[in-house]
Structures are given as C-alpha cells and as structure tokens.
C-alpha cells in the first residue's frame, strides 16, 4: 500500500514536471531560479533586514497618532469585534468544527501567539492579544454549543448586530456621547485604512445599486443621468478626483459646511467606487432573463416588490464576484490617500521612513505593508468565493432538502 502510494507520487511528479525534454529543462531552470531567489530572500530576511523599524513603530502603524490615554476605546472595539465574529461564526456552524474551521482556529491562535512576539510587544500588550483571540474562539465554541436553540427571530436578527456594531465602533473611534472627541487628523495607520475602506464599502453599494437600476431604467432622464455619472467617474483617475475633493469641495459648499480633509477623501472614495459597483451590478441585472420581471408583474407584484423579491436576489448573486472584486480594489485604493497627505498605512510608512533613525529601511516596511494588504485582500477574495458556493442555487436546494 505504502509502496503504491510512493509510486503514484513519482508517476505524478514525472507527468507534471518531466513529461518531455523541454519540460524537464524548464523545470530545472525554474527550480534553480526559485532556489536562488528564495535563498537570497531568506538570507536577507533573517540576517540583513533590521526589523526594529517595525517593532519600534508598531503602534504608529496600527493607529497612528491616536491619543495614548484614549486607546482603551480601540481595545474595547477590537474585543467587541472579536466577540461578534465568534458569535456569528458559532451560530452559522453550530456544534461541529469542520476541517476548515479547525484550520482557521489554529491559524488564529498561531497568529495571536507569534505576531506579538515578533513585534516584541510588552507582556501587557501580548496578553491582551491572547485574551482577544481566546475571546473569539471561546464565544465561537459557546455560540456553537448553545446558540442553535435560539428562537428563530433572534437568529434572523443576528446580522443586524453588524450595522449596530459599526455605529458603536464609529462612536468609540471618533468620540461623542460623553467620550472625549478624537479628531480624524489624529487617526492613522491601519485604523485609518480600515475606517476609510469600510465607510466607502458600506455606502458605495446602495449608491451603486441605485445607479445600476437607473442605468437600466426605461425613464430617459434617470438613464442618461446615471450613464453620465458612471462614465464621468470611470473616465477619470482616482488621484485626480481625490485632488479635486481636497481642492474644489471647499469652493462648492458654503464655508463651514465642507467636511474635514479625512471625510472629504472618504466621500470621494465612496462616490468613485459607486460608479464601478454600478457596472458590476448592471452585469448581474443583465444576466436575469426579462421573463422574470414580466412573470413577477403578471403575478401582480408592483415593480419595487418584483425587484426586491425576484430580480435582485438573482442579479446580486451573479454580480457578487465582480462586486467583491471592486471592494478589494477599493481597499487597495486607500493607499492613494498617502498622496494627498493623509496618514493611511502607506502615509504612516512614509513618515516613519522620513525619520533619520530609520532611513533606508524601505524594504522592511514595504514588505510588511505588502503582507498586510495581501492577507486582507486574499481573505476578502476567499470569503467571496465561499459565499458564492453557499448562494449557488444547487447548494441552496441541496441544503434545504
């Protein structure tokens, strides 16, 4: 049995890598290149790179110049987010831990253990990260164990937890309601990137949906209005629009009404992404046969109800990959904020590297940012693919049966 398995492996390797003479040569050249590059990279990362620039500035990268005595609010928000994630996860999956869940749990535990160690955080900070990871996994376990007997209205209301948490988070971050206000210009790093991208993602979707419906509308005024807006935005590079937001928005609104620089950028990102999301949704709408709308109308549903109950569920399912693709682009586009002087992750990186103590440490900092962005974007992509399979009509009917 053992022998057979090994034979199969050899056969497979030969088929994959050495099927012909050219294939063999290509394989050898590639293996040589990979070994050389990988070796050089490892030598640099382990012996030459100076990770102090990341270790010393980890707080700056995480939250920017957020006041020290107010940072407990961000810890509280992180714990709330962890608990909510655990709750949703547990209720969704129930009592058992399928292999994917186990991998995710191990990854999470490993990251919570290793990353604070690598950053050489103080023991108090390390312990907080461990506690947050434990909280997430604990809530997931408890929710899986006791969450299922929850009465259906509770379970249906669970998704509402997230918008509520978003509002709570915004209050915690910016202050108000008895908390000391923290000016947006003091936010920075990952905090700024996440605030900007979540704000724009949440608002650009309804806006994009409205534009897509407008573009397919039979009313000429709505249609042409949407077309002009979408094509105008899609024809311009984002950086010119951000620049326009910073320089012209002040002239367009009466004095005092114009938002602060950070929020100006957030609104520009929102209006920019809406045009692209509109095109993604439009492709989904185009995939729904005309007969669906006609049938719904023939059954006596008014147009808005026919849209909500019949057309949109099908259209959005088709549009999901493209829409999430736009969200990923939006997350990446937040780096452009550094070009207009805001302190997002890349902006903070620029200020750190302008510090004479860390001059020339570009490679370390950029590598860190690249890994961070890659993980966030890849996670979004994976989530979208998982949602796609879940929403697939075949899977849905199989789950119901």
């Amino acid at each position, binding site marked *: 049995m053992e022998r057979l398995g090994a034979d199969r492996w050899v056969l497979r390797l030969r088929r994959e890598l050495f*099927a012909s003479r050219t*294939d063999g040569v290509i394989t050898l050249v590639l293996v040589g290149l990979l070994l050389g590059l990988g070796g050089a990279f490892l030598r640099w990362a382990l012996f030459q790179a100076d990770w102090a620039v990341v270790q010393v500035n980890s707080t700056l990268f995480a939250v920017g110049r957020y006041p020290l005595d107010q940072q407990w609010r961000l810890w509280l928000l992180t714990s709330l987010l962890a608990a909510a994630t655990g709750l949703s996860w547990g209720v969704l999956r129930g009592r058992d831990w399928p292999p994917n869940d186990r991998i995710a749990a191990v990854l999470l535990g490993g990251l919570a253990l290793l990353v604070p160690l690598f950053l050489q955080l103080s023991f108090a900070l390390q312990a907080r990260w461990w506690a947050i990871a434990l909280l997430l996994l604990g809530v997931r376990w408890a929710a899986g164990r006791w969450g299922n007997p929850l009465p259906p209205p509770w379970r249906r209301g669970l998704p509402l937890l997230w918008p509520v948490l978003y509002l709570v988070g915004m209050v915690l971050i910016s202050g108000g309601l008895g908390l000391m206000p923290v000016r947006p210009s003091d936010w920075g790093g990952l905090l700024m990137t996440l605030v900007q991208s979540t704000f724009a993602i949440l608002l650009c979707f309804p806006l994009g949906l409205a534009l897509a419906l407008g573009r397919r509308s039979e009313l000429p005024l709505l249609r042409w209005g949407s077309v002009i807006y979408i094509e105008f935005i899609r024809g311009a*590079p984002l950086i010119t629009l951000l620049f326009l937001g910073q320089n012209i928005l002040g002239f367009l609104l009466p004095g005092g009404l114009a938002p602060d620089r950070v929020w100006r950028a957030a609104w520009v990102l929102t209006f920019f992404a809406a045009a692209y999301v509109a095109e993604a949704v439009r492709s989904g709408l185009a995939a729904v046969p005309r007969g669906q709308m006609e049938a719904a109308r023939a059954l006596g549903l008014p147009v808005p109800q026919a849209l909500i109950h019949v057309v949109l569920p099908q259209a959005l399912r088709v549009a999901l990959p493209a829409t999430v693709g736009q969200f990923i682009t939006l997350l990446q586009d937040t780096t452009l904020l550094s070009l207009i002087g805001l302190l997002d992750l*890349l902006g903070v990186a620029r200020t750190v590297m302008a510090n004479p103590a860390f001059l020339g440490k570009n490679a370390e900092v950029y590598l860190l940012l690249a890994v961070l962005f890659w993980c966030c974007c890849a996670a979004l992509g994976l989530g979208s693919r998982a949602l796609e399979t879940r929403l697939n009509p075949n899977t849905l009917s199989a789950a119901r049966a």
Partner: protein
Amino acid sequence: MGAAGTPSAVTPWWRDRRWIPWIVQGAVALAVLVVVAFLLGNLVRNLTAAGLLLSWRWVGNPAGFDISETLLPFDASLPYWRALLAGLANTLRVVLAGLVGATVLGTLVGTASFSSNGLLRRLARVYVEVIRNIPLLLQLVFWYFVVFLALPNGRDALQLPGVVLARSGLYLGWFTDPLHLTWTGPHLEGSVWHAPLRLTVEFGALLTGLVVYTGAFIAEVVRGGVASVPQGQWEAARSLGFMPLQILRRIVLPQALRVIVPGLNSQYISLAKNSSLAVACGYSDLYSVAETTLNQTGRAVEVMLILLGAYLVIDLLISALMNGLNQLVQLKER
C-alpha cells in the same frame, strides 16, 4: 363592469400608470437641478471672493519650474501650457511603453497557465495572485525606492548584454548608423556610462511597476480567452501534427482573441489612468505637472478641467483603437 373600462374614474392621478414615470423623473430632475444650482452658486461666489473666477490667461505666464526629463524641449521660462503639454507627452510615453510591455508579459503568463509543465503553471498562478492582491502604489514605491534607487553606479552597475542598469539611469544599446548596422552598446567613460539610449530610473520604476501590475490582470484576460476555445481544437490540431507552440499561435490564439480583445480594452484604460500615480516615483507626468501648476497658480477649477479632459481623451482614444481591433478579430460571416 363598465367602470373597469375607465380607470381614471377610480384611480387618482398620482397612481395613474401614465403619469408615474413623469412624476418620478420630474422629482429627480428637480432635485438634481436644485443641488447643482446650489453647488454652482457657491462655486461662483467663493471663486469671486478669492479672485479666482474662471480665466485662461494664466496659461501664458512663464511656468518657473523645471521638468527633469521631457520628450518636448522645455525649460522654466516657457509658459504653463508648454509645461502641461510636456507632462502630457511624458504620460503618453509611459502609457505606450506600458501597453506594449504589459501585453507581452500578460500573454506570456496567461499562456503559461496552459503549459504541460506543472511548475510553470503554478508559478503563473502565484504571480497573478500575489500581484493582484497588493496595491499598485505600494508596488511602485517598492520598485522605485527598494530596487531602482539601490542600483550601484559606475563600474559596479548591473551589466547585461546591450543593457546597463545603474543608479544614474538605464542605458540601452542601439544602432547608431542604421545603414551599416553599427551597434553601439553602453560604455564606461571615467565612471560615467554613455549609451545611445538613456532612460531615467524614475521612468524605469514607473514602467516596471505598471507592466508587472497590469501584466497580472492581462494574464487573467488571456487565460479566460484561451480557456474559452474548446478542447477539441487543441486535440484536432495535435492530431494534424502541429507542435504545441504552433497550435497556440495558429489555432488557439486567433480564436481566443475574440474574447480577449474586449477584456484588454478595460485593462489598457486602467493602465492609462494608473499612470497618474507616477508622482509617487518622481516621474513628471501630466498629473504631477498639473499638481505643481495648481500649487503655484491656485487655479483649481481650470487645472482640474484640463486633467479630466486629457484623461477622458486618452481613454476614448484607447477605446476607439480597441474597438477597431475588435472588429478585425471578430468572426467574419458572410
């Protein structure tokens, strides 16, 4: 029964099917008009107060700043419009070079994902997945600050056949005498390189970043196009005795082009728009010249109009070219 024939007698006008579209459109038009009038009114009032009301006389004033590398001759005493024109020429240069480079790279990587070699196939996937999930701006600053600015100068410069990569620029060999095909490669005089063609590291970093980034997206477009050609076409060609590369070139790619060209169009346009990030690696493209101009003159509205107009024209040009190409490769039926 008779009342059913005259719905207007029972239905109030605001629920009448004939009126609803006009009511909705009227309401939307009114709202848009009010908002636009409000914004424009503010704009005119604020601009008048600042003494910046729309005028184009400033474009004739001397620019007073220099541009480090230009295709068109330029110096600080020339007017603003010449500066903007030089910026536009720089943008067009990097966009054209980028289009060619990204197409070549994307086609190579896209077809590599159909190689019989498993390692090559997987490497192509890894390249696409890594590059697409990292922001372009981050990649541009990486290429500029970590790679190109770290190149050694003089004798230690990176020397390849016909090409020398140094901190002071990229030196390319070329035929100096086209009639006799005299080839002049890069050569060292003292500690300074000389060559028929020299590119700055700023241009090199921007071009590399754009090509590598857009190449990953084009690879996906090419992969989708090649995958759309039925498997039977490969098998038929193989049974006729074609070699693998021949099959790709003569049989598969011509059919795949029908799917690829529309996808390429949007990638080309996004490359043109992304070239505006040149400012991050110190290359003086249209956007970066416009930014300097705005900072010096304060003419926000006019500069924005120029910028938006210029990029719109570039987008439309690319679209027109690609639509022409699309008609060429489409299936011709009687």
